[in-house]
């Protein structure tokens, strides 16, 4: 081939350029430490680098940030739990002291102070925080576990319990003994030995004391058919005497008495058994929640555990604005709610139709109706009492003093009856507000209808009886007619004519009465169904309420590895139960009672010692002293038992705490293992990443040196070639 100088120049330049490109690539590798400078240099490396860098970012996040954070959280939790464990141990030792029968008043005072101090400590420990976030409050890390300040705010709380929460409680009925003073020792009643007794009742101890007395709780459970059943409670106050709520509960087997001050629902024997028959629902967490109690509390003291951390609850229950349900049954609830709305709509439609059909009927609200029913029952009770008293009064051998007392009571009864009747009338006159209260047909009207029906039916029955007797006569006469003589026959014919006309007139009357009766019966039935609707709606509401329940445990998990999480929080439900405070409350009240009784007893003793032995006053005081002694020994006995059971209770709580500590420790251990593994993985990924994209400096340096040599050689060759031409030699 013919080679011209220009070809040589061009080829040389090309070669020099190729060398330069190569050198540039190597020097870029040297200075950037990367194998490639743009993705198209090696798409495989570039794309793999993206994935590996992403992996490194992720591992670094786990190893350098998430794991240390999880660690600190666990440390804070562990510290708080250890503290809690110590508190529980102290409580147990206090209980052990308290269980000792021979305690001086000073001892009791010390134990009392200690218990109260410890109980406060429990809840302040529970407010432990990690970087401003409360660690025991599940997802609500922005709210402390307990109220920091006292507060007025209405919560509707739904406490979910199971059969085990039903327990027996002993109450010393000390009459008016605690109100004894030297001044009222003559007039004070119920301080004799008979009125002092120990009462055993069943109760549900709610999580809080000082609950709302405005709102009577509702107990909900599912019967064997799976239908929700709602039970109402009657409110009685702890200060009520004669009878006290406890006494009342022990007397009335069906009693469900709500004592707002102490936060208890006292149960009669039947009520207790009814609830004990509720089956365990294994689908609920820890088998709890078969029995639900809905109640309200308005005032909160500093240190009270906030209910939203424990229970399904609404703050401000009367408005829908601020709903704080935590609900894991939302989808089920929605289905039931839909059904509920449909049913409710149908029922309301039905009710409206009836209301329209009978415009003259008076309607009252369901709440009024309930009140009326209650008042009626009270009236009946009063009647019964009155007749018993009258009988006693009229009986021979009743002392005048007793008669005077009876009269006094009869007058009272008359007054009470008037009051009740007035209340009932007022209820009937109230203009019902259909938006708030479900309407009920006036029961007086119903009774009126009933009596009308009864009268008419009585009339019909009489007429029917007459007709059947006439018919009997008719058939007898017909039989006789064959054999009778002419006169008799004429008589019979005349009589038969009478009978026939009477029968047809009876038939006419009966059918006219029936025509009158039918609309009345219909009205009666319609109104009855109208009234039943209210109960049905109530039932639906119960179903719905029952569905809404506490959420599953609120577990906070941190990502600490690829697809690996670790739980960092312990929830309050595991280690800070309401029971701790309530048990302390019980113990404090019992101890206080003992101290008070002891004081009273001492006072009576000193008053007694001041009187002449044998005087009336002395006798009264002696009786009172014996009563006080009995009350004290009963109270001491009870308190000692309470402390004994307190040991077991606190032991149980201590076990819970220990379990939490162990769980926490296990998590820390696991976290350490993960941390080690993450460290390894981090190194591995960093190595992989580096191998993939980083240049090998030694290799690059050698290549660069050789590239430089080649470049110099190329320059030299070009220089030599382009210098000479033939011209120089001619």
């Amino acid at each position, binding site marked *: *081939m*013919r*080679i*011209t*100088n*220009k*070809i040589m120049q*061009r*080829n040389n330049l*090309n070669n020099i350029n190729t060398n330069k490109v190569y050198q540039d690539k190597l020097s870029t590798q040297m200075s950037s430490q*990367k194998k490639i400078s*743009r*993705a*198209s*240099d090696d*798409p495989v490396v*570039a*794309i793999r*680098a*993206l*994935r590996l*860098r*992403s992996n490194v*970012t*992720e591992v670094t*996040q*786990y190893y350098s*940030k*998430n794991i240390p*954070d999880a660690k600190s959280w666990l440390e804070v939790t562990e510290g708080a739990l250890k503290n809690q464990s110590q508190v529980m141990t102290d409580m147990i030792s206090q209980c052990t002291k308290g269980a000792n029968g021979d305690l001086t008043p000073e001892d009791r005072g010390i134990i009392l102070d200690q218990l109260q101090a410890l109980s406060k400590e429990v809840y302040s420990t529970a407010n432990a925080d990690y970087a401003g*976030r409360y660690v025991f*409050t*599940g*997802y*609500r*890390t*922005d*709210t402390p576990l307990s109220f920091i300040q006292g507060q007025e705010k209405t919560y509707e709380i739904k406490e979910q319990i199971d059969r085990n929460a039903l327990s027996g409680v002993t109450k010393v009925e000390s009459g008016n003994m605690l109100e004894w003073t030297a001044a009222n020792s003559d007039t004070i009643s119920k301080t004799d030995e008979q009125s002092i007794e120990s009462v055993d009742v069943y109760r549900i101890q709610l999580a809080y004391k000082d609950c709302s007395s405005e709102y009577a709780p509702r107990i909900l459970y599912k019967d064997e058919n799976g239908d929700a059943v709602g039970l109402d409670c009657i409110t009685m106050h702890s200060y009520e005497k004669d009878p006290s709520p406890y006494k009342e509960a022990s007397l009335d087997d069906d009693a469900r008495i709500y004592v707002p001050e102490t936060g208890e629902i006292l149960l009669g024997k039947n009520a207790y058994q009814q609830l004990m028959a509720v089956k365990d629902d294994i689908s609920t967490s820890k088998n709890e929640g078969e029995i639900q109690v809905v109640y309200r509390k308005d005032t909160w003291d500093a240190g009270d555990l906030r209910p939203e951390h424990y229970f399904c609850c609404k703050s401000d229950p009367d408005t829908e604005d601020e*709903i*704080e*349900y*935590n*609900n*894991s049954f*939302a989808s089920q609830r929605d289905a039931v709610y839909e059904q509920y709305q449909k049913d409710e709509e149908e029922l309301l439609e039905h009710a409206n139709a009836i209301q329209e059909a009978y415009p003259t009927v008076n309607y009252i609200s369901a709440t009024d109706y309930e009140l009326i029913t209650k008042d009626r029952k009270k009236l009946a009770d009063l009647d019964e009492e009155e007749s018993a008293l009258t009988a006693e009064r009229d009986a021979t051998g009743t002392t005048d003093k007793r008669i005077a007392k009876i009269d006094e009571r009869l007058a009272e009864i008359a007054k009470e009856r008037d009051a009740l009747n007035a209340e009932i009338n007022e209820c009937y006159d109230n203009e019902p507000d259909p938006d708030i209260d479900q309407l009920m047909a006036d029961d007086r009207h119903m009774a009126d209808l009933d009596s009308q029906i009864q009268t008419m039916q009585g009339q019909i029955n009489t007429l029917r009886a007459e007709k059947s007797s006439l018919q009997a006569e008719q058939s007898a006469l017909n039989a006789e007619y064959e054999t009778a003589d002419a006169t008799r026959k004429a008589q019979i014919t005349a009589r038969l004519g009478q009978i026939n006309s009477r029968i047809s007139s009876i038939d006419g009357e009966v059918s006219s009465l029936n025509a009158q009766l039918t609309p009345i019966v219909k009205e009666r039935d319609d109104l009855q169904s109208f009234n039943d609707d209210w109960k049905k709606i109530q039932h639906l509401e119960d179903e719905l309420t029952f569905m809404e329940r506490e*959420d599953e445990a*609120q577990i*906070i998990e*941190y*990502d600490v590895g690829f697809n690996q999480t670790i739980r960092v*929080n312990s929830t309050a439900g595991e280690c800070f139960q309401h029971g701790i405070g309530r048990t302390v409350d019980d113990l404090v009240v019992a101890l206080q009672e003992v101290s008070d009784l002891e004081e009273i007893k001492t006072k009576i003793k000193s008053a007694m010692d001041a009187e002449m032995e044998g005087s009336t006053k002395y006798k009264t005081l002696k009786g009172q002293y014996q009563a006080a002694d009995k009350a004290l020994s009963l109270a001491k006995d009870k308190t000692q038992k309470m402390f004994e059971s307190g040991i077991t209770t606190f032991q149980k709580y201590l076990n819970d705490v220990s379990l939490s500590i162990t769980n926490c420790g296990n998590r820390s251990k696991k976290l350490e293992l993960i941390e080690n593994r993450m460290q390894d993985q981090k190194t591995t990924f960093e190595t992989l990443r580096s191998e993939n994209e980083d240049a090998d400096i030694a290799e690059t340096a050698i290549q660069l040196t050789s590239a430089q040599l080649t470049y110099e050689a190329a320059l030299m060759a070009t220089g030599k070639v382009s210098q000479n*031409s*033939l*011209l120089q030699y*001619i």
Partner: protein
Amino acid sequence: MPSQFFGLNIAYKGLLASNAALTTTANNISNVQTEGYSRQETPQQASMPIRVFQTYGCAGAGVEVFSAERIRDEFYDGKYWRSNTTTGEYDMKNYYMEQVETYFDDDGMNAGFKTIFDQFNITGLEELLKNPGSDKIKSQYVGSAGNLTEYFNGLAGNLENLQRDINLEVKSKVDEITSLAGEIATLNTQINIIEVGKDVTANELRDRRALLIDQLSAIVDVSVTENKVIDPHYPDRDTGSTRYIVRIAGGQMLVDGSDYRRLECKAREDFEKVNQSDVDGLYDVYWNDGSEFNIYNASMGGQLRGLVDMRDGNNGEEFYGMITATSVGEGGAKDTVTVEVGEHYLKDLNKCNLSDQGGKILLGNQEFYYDDWSCTISYDDNGEAKYSYTFELSQDTALNERRITNDRVGMKASVGHNLDYQGIPYYMSQMNEWVRTYSEKYNTILHSGYDSYGKQGINLFTADIGNGEQYAFPDGGRFDTFSYEEFQKNGAITVKSTDDSYYRMTARNYGVQKAVQADPSLLANKYSQGDGVEQSDLLRDLQSLGTDRKKMSFRGSNAGEFLQCMLSDVALNASGAKQFYECNAEIRDTIDVQRMAISGVDEDEEAMNLVKYQNAYNLSAKMIQVFQEIYDRLIRETGV
């Protein structure tokens, strides 16, 4: 016996020949560095001998030079032009892909999608998962969402600028073609003037013309024919003139002898846009007689091809379907045409790249202008999904000269051209698809949950309308989730191009909801209203949206692997363009070297010629001296 002076005449001829050779050498030497110059030679031949009636018969009559010849093999020219055309195409692709690649690059330091998405979905979200109640951390997370949207805005902006640059270059290349055509036509005239009737070659002019074709071949493919002009009266006569024809872009006439055609660029109006993402004023090219110069011609090559591919390349995913219905609007209503589509990229509105400002649609063989369109999904009796687009045709008679007729049903309809290259519209469309799909799924999750205030979650990702306002996208509006059951229940759904569907979100206007930026607490983090601040179940779903292929699949990868998909396209295209360019450039250079090997001036050769012809000249001169001495002897001294 020849003339006594015959020898002197022969020597004189030798002198002339050497002189001619020497001047040619001088010409070659002076043009040694001239681009496109072909070396020339002066071929010599011995003159016709003269018959002398002597014993030796004929006497040599010296030498004669019959032409100055240009040494060139035109076979190599053709080869060079073809390979130069291919090189030109890949030169452009290489140049612009390199820029695209830089935009998509992510090396960990120069933050690209992966780095930013990792900051958002790993670092940001992991911190938030640990502390979902903290406004500060939510704010950081929302900030990193802002980085993500800005990344897309920037990227889309860069690609738009690039498209604009390419468009300008299209214009300059088209202008260059016209100017080259003018020069070639002028040269044709001059060459004919020189060559006509005489047996001469316009060496230098031909060289210059070939050089112009060299330049033209880089821009666009050329084919050249040169025919002799024949005198019809004397077909055997060599008229000396030629007809030189240059065709470009697959055989379209550019230059014919002294005539040439001009090309003009016309910017598209708003209502002529092809792709949603196209910048304003893309050029279409027309001949000066008004007919269209089809730049999408598959046989077109050169830089122009490379530029058009980069500017308009849609990976062969143009709008395409069958006309199923037409309606002639009455009472002022617009004519509409309904087109049923079957291509996968048309069955998802999130992948749609149809212009939202109106455009041109080819119905059968007639082009119509449309103002608006809507997309409908329904099911047939067999439960097969059917997707159709209804176009509202423009009523402007300047645009649509005639109205739609029913006989177009069954014909094919298409918008834009099938350009099987991954150019800027393709990358834009890919980004839009990701942005829309991810945002829609992300927002839907937010909608189903609650924020720190216990209020229902609102959109985080949205798009800016301009003048400070943002779109409020509703849930849904996506076709791949519209099931047969829903169809049976609610009937077909139709989305108009003007509706607030995610179609209106693009990488360019992608943004973060301002309300959430101002108050990050509005970011939903939990599914249950009553749950406390630490609940993060919703955030976990957000996280898995980025990593779980089942929740969001982008081209078969998960959402976080967007860049892997894009980068593999970009890197493969870039390295492909580079390799093709280098390879073709090498071939071109090799051909050029071969051409130079024949036509190039070699210094040594010319030096040798110089010596050679100088010697010959000297010898001829010596010859004359010898003859002079002979005549001296003969005339003065012989017999005198």
